[in-house]
């Protein structure tokens, strides 16, 4: 097991190097000179231009800039935002809980509906429910997040007035963050109406962000279940006279869930990518919105380090999923 783990970690190193190169190159390949972009419509004099280039280290050869960057990142220095002048890591730490909280609820939503729907579709294979579920899942998977989010806002918040339009909590509540997770902080403060407000603010963004994972999980659960339902041991269980619920719930589902767990792990990347759009629409103060703002502000330091931090998190989650998978399924370790 330890060997397996070390193997996996060793494989992460080239990925990590690749990501630093990508993040570094991406920012430099964006059209436009960063100094001129920062200067805006006024422009800068040639002397000032040189001065700024030196100040930001853009006068050095590219390899030296890269070496500097990797050196800084390796020591945990992710740089200072050009626009806010605050350390990037500090901003990331402040904002990440919001993204995590939203992603958690999106995932809960996706699993709570996706898994039962997938099971039901597999059991009733070929029925109108199965057909329409698979059709809907395809639509959900192909839905442009931006459009979907605005549609829900206009209908549920604008037309029906059931949910708040955007934000994380009603503005009448003024709580200093403790953990940064609003649902937890409101409980710690014992403010139940604030908790209700935080939950109502989570409904629409969690649905929007959870839509694609929901579609993927439903489809994956259905196909895994179909495969398992055809296995000999399921037929044996049925022949023994067990109830349908017991056959599906105990014998089939447990085995079908293994690929589903992997799928769920892989959805983390989707969630973080989706968070960029969802957070922007719903004014959700997380890292997705932060990245978008920084791109518009041409804050290259934030974009570069933000990309790297997000990639690190995705890699870490994938590593955990790999390990969990090996724990669930010993055959993987040997392979």
């Amino acid at each position, binding site marked *: 097991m330890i060997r397996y783990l070390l193997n996996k970690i060793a494989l992460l190193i080239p990925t990590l190097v690749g990501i630093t190169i990508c993040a570094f190159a991406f920012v430099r390949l964006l*059209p*436009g*000179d960063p100094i*001129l*972009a*920062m*200067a*805006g*419509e*006024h*422009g800068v004099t040639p002397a*000032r231009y040189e001065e*700024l280039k030196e*100040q*930001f280290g853009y006068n050095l050869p590219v390899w030296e800039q890269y070496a500097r960057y990797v050196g800084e990142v390796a020591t945990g220095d992710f740089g*200072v935002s*050009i*626009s*806010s*002048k*605050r350390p990037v890591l500090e*901003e990331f730490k*402040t*904002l990440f809980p919001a993204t995590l909280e939203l992603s958690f609820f999106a995932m809960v939503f996706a699993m709570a509906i996706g898994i039962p729907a997938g099971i039901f579709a597999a059991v009733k294979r070929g029925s109108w429910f199965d057909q329409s579920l698979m059709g809907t899942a395809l639509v959900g998977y192909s839905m442009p997040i931006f459009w979907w989010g*605005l549609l829900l*806002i*206009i209908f549920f*918040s*604008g037309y029906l*007035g059931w949910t*708040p*339009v*955007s*934000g*994380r909590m009603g*503005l*009448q509540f*003024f709580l*200093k*963050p403790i953990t940064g997770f609003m649902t937890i902080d409101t409980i710690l403060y014992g403010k139940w109406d604030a908790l209700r407000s935080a939950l109502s603010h989570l409904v629409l963004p969690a649905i929007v962000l959870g839509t694609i994972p929901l579609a993927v999980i439903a489809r994956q659960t259905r196909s895994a279940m179909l495969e398992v339902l055809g296995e000999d041991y399921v037929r044996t269980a049925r022949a023994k006279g067990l109830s349908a619920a017991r056959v599906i719930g105990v014998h089939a589902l447990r085995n079908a869930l293994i690929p589903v767990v992997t799928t769920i792990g892989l959805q983390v990347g989707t969630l973080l990518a989706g968070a960029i759009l969802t957070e*922007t*629409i*719903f*004014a959700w*103060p*997380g890292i997705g*919105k*932060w990245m*978008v*703002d920084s791109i*518009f*502000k041409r804050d290259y330091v934030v974009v570069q380090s933000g990309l790297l931090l997000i990639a690190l998190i995705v890699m870490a989650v994938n590593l955990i999923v790999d390990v969990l998978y090996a724990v669930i399924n010993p055959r993987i370790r040997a392979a």
Partner: protein
Amino acid sequence: MKKTMTFAAALLAASVLGGMANAKTLVYCSEASPANFDPGTTTGGNDFDASSRTVYSRLVEFKHGGTEIEPGLADKWEISDDGLVYTFHLHPGVKFQTTDYFKPTRDLNADDVVFSFDRQFNKQNPWNGEKYLPNLTWDYYTGMDMPKYVAKWEKVDDLTVKLTLTEPNAPMLANLGMDFASIVSKEYADQLEKDGKMADFSTKPIGTGPFQFVDYQLDSVIRYAAHPDYFKGKEKIDDLVFAITPDATARIQKVLAGECDVAPYPNPADIATIKANKDVTLMDQAGLNIGYMSYNTTIPPLDKPEVRHALNQAIDREALIKSLFQDAGATPAQNLIPPTMWSWNKDVKFDSYDPEAAKKVLADAGLKEIQLWASDRVRPYNPNFQRAAELIQADWAKVGVKAEIVNYEWTKYREEGKKKERPGAFQIGWTGDNGDPDNFFATLFACSAIGVSNYSSWCDKDFEDLIQKAKKTSDQGERTKLYAQAQEIFAKQAPAFLLAHSQVYSVVRNNVTGYKMDPLGIHRFDGVDKAE
């Protein structure tokens, strides 16, 4: 008797509690997070809304809803006859805000004013560089050419400050009303320096303005309370909240749902919905901007004014504006400056659409081909350069001129476009900084701006003399006359095709009173009230 007393006590308690419950809160759905709260170090309109226009005041202020200068922290000022020395007399007894992180021990004085500017250029000032914040560039201070014009700032006595210039520069007064010229507290700065917490200066602001800072949750909510000792009188709103909402559609939905009271910049597509709603008002104003297209006036045949006029006449401007700005609309430009700016000459009219007349002039001049430049960026004064280029190309084709569209990425576009030898017609525009006509005329068309921001490479002696004289004259009446003449010359010489001044919108709930659109594009909440 006892019963009456109890009843009176209950009534009193109810009215006190009722009063508390009625604390007036105004929610503004802002479009982006502020970079920080030190207006000297930032450049964005949203940064300024959140700092300089709420927390701070300046020596002079722009009149609410206009570009005229009125007294701010300085009650009055004198300008020496040679235009070189400005003496400001500060309003006595101006209080800085008292918060849980700073308790001022003295009123505003000349030290604060001198410090507010000194920190922006004096490399010896500990607040100028790395010690305060990394990578400080003081963009607006340098962008407005302050280092070139300011010789020194001096304290004469506690309530008198003297500014000496290197050469006369009438727009200086307008510069001092700009956000970067906000007056900060030297006492607060000294305290933070002593405590080794200098960076707090940009995150926990202290000023003399109408609202004081309470809290900022990163990328989410900014809270302010009315400054109780504000020198112009406490505001009617008790609490001001900025709910940061970047998506334009979500912002408008929030106003319609009553989650915010004011929101800026709706999408053009939402304008019809807003107009149809009875609870909100759509406010609009011509922005302090201009979209235009510069002809290189040094390369024949574009060196002839009649050829430039003919190219202007060949463009169906009304159709062009309609296609570009759609429902949002825009004011067709008659002059380089917008009608909201003082000195706008109402008698000057831009070339009217007349393709027949244009065709003849262009044929006589032998103009068959021309370069037409376009970039990828959306600007407030031109939402789609490429679309505009295609429409102009079609109009010019009708008068026998074949236009070749030249494309570049935005920063490269401006680099190439400003070169003296750049041929043809170059689409560009400008958003004003301080409401002074000099900020348009001299920045965009002075001889000295050739190769920098005079994309027409146009240097007309009469025009130049007028704008330079206006720059050195302190009397606004006199300056107005000079700029009015300059506009006549501009119209006659036609160094550029003038497109439009785009409309700027805000959506305001009907129970909000006193909110005014600002031509400078800032969002101010002083003087605003809200009915329950």
